[in-house]
């Protein structure tokens, strides 16, 4: 990556400076590969649950990591970088929905199948994906970040571009809505 200028986003730069007092060298390939192998699976799962399309999830995953490399976050902590990549992935997913304007109906893998899967695990997977895709993208992101990534309200707010104090209300509504869907489908505990 030598010879390439990469800009560190303000929060990462602030953290990097606060820890070392000077900006550092760009992340090298080995460091990137370690980080990627550790976190790409989780980011892909999130993007796949958001978009219900493996190819789109692949595409957004790569874009997220392109941005990550451009941001040169080599000095930030692993946890900070992980939060950063999820935030970027969320932004990319939301941009994707805005661009395609298929927020509620864009479930290609689910709609594209000729028939319902027959294998029990595949049926369960299909039903779960279908249920989750009935939520709005923002509700999906809220639920995944809160329940799976265990992100706090501030992080969720940053990822979704809403105030942290709004997250509690939005999350409550998303949970209620998923709860209603599960009840309607007879899947509620």
């Amino acid at each position: 990556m030598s010879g390439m200028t990469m800009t560190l986003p303000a929060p990462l730069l602030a953290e990097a400076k606060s820890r070392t007092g000077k900006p550092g060298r760009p992340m090298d390939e080995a460091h990137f590969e370690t980080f990627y192998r550790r976190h790409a699976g989780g980011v892909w799962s999130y993007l796949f649950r958001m978009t219900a399309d493996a190819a789109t999830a692949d595409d957004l995953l790569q874009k997220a990591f392109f941005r990550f490399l451009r941001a040169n976050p080599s000095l930030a902590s692993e946890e900070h970088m992980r939060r950063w990549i999820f935030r970027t992935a969320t932004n990319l997913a939301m941009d994707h929905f805005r661009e395609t304007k298929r927020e509620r109906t864009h479930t290609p893998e689910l709609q594209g199948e000729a028939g319902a899967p027959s294998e029990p695990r595949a049926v369960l997977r299909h039903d779960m994906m279908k249920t989750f895709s009935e939520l709005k993208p923002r509700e999906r992101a809220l639920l995944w970040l809160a329940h799976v990534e265990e992100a706090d309200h501030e992080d969720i707010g940053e990822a979704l571009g809403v105030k942290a104090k709004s997250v509690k209300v939005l999350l409550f509504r998303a949970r209620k809505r998923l709860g209603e869907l599960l009840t309607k489908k007879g899947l509620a505990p």
Partner: protein
Amino acid sequence: MSETCRFESDVLRAVEEDRWTDALREHLTACDDCVAAMAVAPWMERFAKMSDREHILPDPSVVWLKAKLLQNTAEANRVSRPLDVAQFLAYLVVAGGWAGLLTWRWDALMAWMNSLTPAGIVQTAASRTPSLSLSLVAAVLMLASITVMLALHTILAEE
């Protein structure tokens, strides 16, 4: 309303481990947030654990290489931006030059073009006076040269 309920993580852990205390049960009677969280937590957990192992992720070296190429392209675009601006300005100057020349010496040029008949050429040769002034010829040649150079530059730059 801005903070997570401080019992929420305890409630979620209790759901996961199915170990409830009286205090948590009591809390659930008064906290809508925790009730809503409890209602979806087991499903979200199963959903998160749904296997994605059959999907092969893009290789990190490919992602690294693509990122590098994109950065190179972005850098090249950034560096070439002043050249693009200069090229655009050159187009404007040349177009302005031709427009100015045609406006300034329109009558002379029209007279010269009208003289390009066999009779006109003979008459001009006989009179031994040039039909166009030297300054006009020089200006036309200069502008034509610049136009050709600009066109060649554009073609070569695109290639």
